[in-house]
């Protein structure tokens, strides 16, 4: 295997308590800490491990987003990606557009494997990976929690409701990373300094010949209702009573 492409999305950091804009048009992003989507970090870590086992030679991190998404790509480069591509757009784009953009990159780069996070923690859509596989006409394996590669076949263990499901796909394929696939490494200090010198190309949707889809429209955004105050119970018997009263157990 030669190339692996990894999708990297810039999202609000998971530690930030998000606040909805007063007009309900979305989430306030001014001055909010942004990070690499945690599932994309896992995707990249898996690609790095594949490369370190000698099963791949190049890892390309790709992001679609504003100019500032270069920060997240620099993080990917510091983690160990060989080069990065930013598809610059200042518009909020939906999964289908992201999939089209990734497909355009794939056509040029001809990767043997694409790994993306199973979902981004901002919109939780979990659609870009599957849509990309469909557009590309290649197999997909979502929610991957274990990945082994043998020549042109990848074996994937998926965590499903009934337990663990093992499937095989022919490469090239799209794989989406689940939480337990691996634990991403600490970015090493010397690698952070070296990341500055790695190649980061910037392109845009028009150059790639991708038009922005408008199938989705955000109508309104609101914060979840505040949780009602809990009650303290003395023991298990009282707890069971309280749950029964609420009709939560019979």
């Amino acid at each position, binding site marked *: 295997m030669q190339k692996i492409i990894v999708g990297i999305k810039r999202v609000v950091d998971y530690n930030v308590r998000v606040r909805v804009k007063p007009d309900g048009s979305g989430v306030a992003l001014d001055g909010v800490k942004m990070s690499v989507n945690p599932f994309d970090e896992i995707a990249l870590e898996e690609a790095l491990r594949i490369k370190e086992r000698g099963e791949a030679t190049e890892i390309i991190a790709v992001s679609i987003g504003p100019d500032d998404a*270069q920060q997240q790509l620099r993080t990917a480069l*510091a983690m160990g990606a060989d080069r990065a591509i930013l598809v610059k757009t200042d518009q909020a784009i939906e999964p289908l557009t992201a999939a089209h953009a990734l497909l355009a990159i794939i056509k040029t780069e001809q990767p043997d494997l694409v790994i993306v996070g199973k979902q981004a923690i901002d919109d939780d859509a979990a659609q870009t990976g599957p849509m990309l596989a469909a557009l590309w006409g290649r197999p997909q394996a979502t929610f991957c929690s274990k990945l082994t590669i043998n020549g042109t076949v990848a074996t994937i263990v998926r965590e499903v409701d009934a337990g663990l499901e093992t499937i095989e796909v022919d490469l090239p394929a799209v794989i989406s990373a689940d939480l337990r696939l691996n634990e991403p490494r*600490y970015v090493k*200090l010397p690698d*952070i*300094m070296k990341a500055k010198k790695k190649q980061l190309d910037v392109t845009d949707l028009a150059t790639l010949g991708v038009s922005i889809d408008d199938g989705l429209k955000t109508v309104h955004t609101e914060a979840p209702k505040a949780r009602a105050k809990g009650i303290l119970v003395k023991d298990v018997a009282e707890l069971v009573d309280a749950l029964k009263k609420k009709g939560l157990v019979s």
Partner: protein
Amino acid sequence: MEFSLSDEQRMIIKTTRDFVTHELMPHEAEVEATGVLRPELQAALKAKAIDAGLYAANMPADVGGAGLDTVTWVLYEKELGRTGYALHYNCVGRPSNILCACVGEQREKYLYPSVRGERVDCLAMTEPGAGSDVRGMKTTAVADKDDFVINGTKHFISHADHADFVILFAATGEESGPRGIKKKITAFLVDMGTPGFVVRDGYRNVSHRGYNNCILEFNDCRVPKSAVLGQVHEGFEVANSWLGATRLQVAATSIGRAERALALATEWAAQRQQFGQQIGKFQGVSFKLADMALELRAAELLTLDAAWKFDQKIATDSDMAMAKLKATEMLAMVADEALQIHGGMGLMSDLPLERIWRDARIERIWEGTSEIQRHIISRAMLRPHGG
């Protein structure tokens, strides 16, 4: 003026914070409860720190360190300061920058192994009779043919319990100056186990459990002339040229710890309900939070300003003194108020606040007391007026 962080600085902060949060903080309770950082735990965490490239990141790139500029190094120190001192200093070691003064074989024997984490240094200046008045030291090193013979006692020597060698300062002569007799000081590199050199347990103390200070005794301890670091009689010159911004290290770690205390206090003020409302809505609590945030920001800006000036080679002794003084006094205030906001709960060892409060106390004393820093600042002001 440019105050924004570079991508590299942001990443260094993140990776250091992640390491501190996931690798070091989980062991805080054990170190606090036992007063000991177990050697096997220390070794395991140190190996992880080396692997993450965090170990010896203070050192220049040409000797194997990370080659950080002073501002970035301060940001790194600040993140390390969020956890207990024994955990961050003994596991994520920062060898003394003075080792960069090593020449020839000294570099192979002391400098490079220290950067790689194979050997650990400690620095011995303070004596029972020589604290702030460091030139008053009584430890002597007398030339004898090709050797120096060292006699005297050092105390409060940090890290000597697990160090492999000591950077020792001793008087090698006297000269008369305008203000009387002045001792001439020389720096030496002395290996642990050298005959005539004994390390004894130091004193139990209020701050930084798991960290030990030691007493060093020298009785006719003989070292070769090749053990001299820098030039004979020029120990302070070596220290001044190479020791680096150690006061900024104290300032930065104090700021990191204060940030943690303030975050805990803010969280508590928002969650804790009394008299039917968040306690943070009472002015008695909210004004405390505002003052804490204000002091913290002021200390951070002073420290970053001093670090930036250090990089530009325009930092004065006063800049260093102001950063150290402000950051350590701010930490004392923030730790105390964070504890106060928590009420009785703040005193319980289940929260890190009582530790942060105890640990804060040493910061106003070591690396130059608050009084010495005020002396430095005021002297610089008065000197042009003939003071």
